[in-house]
């Protein structure tokens, strides 16, 4: 294993996590405040997502144009199909996100913050993913 194979995922994971903290997105009040358009609306999440996409977009498009990542790997290219699994899955995820204000990224950062309250959430996320893997594969 080369040094880059360790440093790149670790370093970008760290930067991603610090971004979640700086942006305020690890605070469930900011997430739920964004989703609560009928209440005291907090627009920060839209700026976070907009800022992230604005920076990521040229990097993703550059990678696709090159056809190869810097390490020579073929860039991952998930299927483009829009089907029932996508819609139902995204819909169910949204309900869980709306109930808690936590999505997987911030959930894992919470672990690093040393707050044990997040354990039931993370264990349940793994259990939910395990269950979804048990569903028959349909087209």
């Amino acid at each position, binding site marked *: 294993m080369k040094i880059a194979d360790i440093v790149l995922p670790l370093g970008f994971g760290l930067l991603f996590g610090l971004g979640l903290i700086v*942006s305020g997105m690890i605070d469930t009040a900011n997430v739920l405040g964004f989703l609560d358009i009928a209440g005291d609306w907090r627009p920060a999440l839209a700026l*976070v997502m907009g800022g992230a996409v604005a920076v990521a977009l040229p990097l993703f498009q550059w990678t696709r144009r090159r056809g190869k990542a810097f390490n020579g790997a073929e860039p991952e290219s998930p299927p483009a199909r*829009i089907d029932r699994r996508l819609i139902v899955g995204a819909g169910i995820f949204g309900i869980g996100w709306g109930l808690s204000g936590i999505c997987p990224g911030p959930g894992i950062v919470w672990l690093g913050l040393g707050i044990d309250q997040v354990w039931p959430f993370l264990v349940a996320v793994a259990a939910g993913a395990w269950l979804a893997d048990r569903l028959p594969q349909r087209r």
Partner: protein
Amino acid sequence: MDSQILAAALLGGAMIGLAAGGLYLTTGRIAGISSLYGDAVLRRPQAWRWLFLAGLILAGLLARPLGLTVPEALGHGPLWLAAAGLLVGFGTRLGNGCTSGHGVCGLARLSWRSLTAVLVFMATAGVTVYVVRHILKAA
């Protein structure tokens, strides 16, 4: 909105976008945390997944020493968080992504599939928050 909150949201968002775009450009990997976490725990124990997750945890560990403001608690009890986590895990596995995979990487790849997912999970999350806060007045 307070200009300090706005600046933090944009800066944090740019950090997230740089991390996701940088990972894709250098390694060809998509920083979708739900897939990363699910695969790390359930299926393919590839080193890069654990390293990226370790980076996220490290961000949490470093937050206070770096003087970043962090929340001290999640706003819900363990059963509520476990129920939400189950839905998040199941839904993201079925729909192949969450706020990072579809919301940041997918939109940066200009994927219609991801845009569809984002609109669906934003809608169900918004309805969930409305029901919980304004109809049930539960949280």
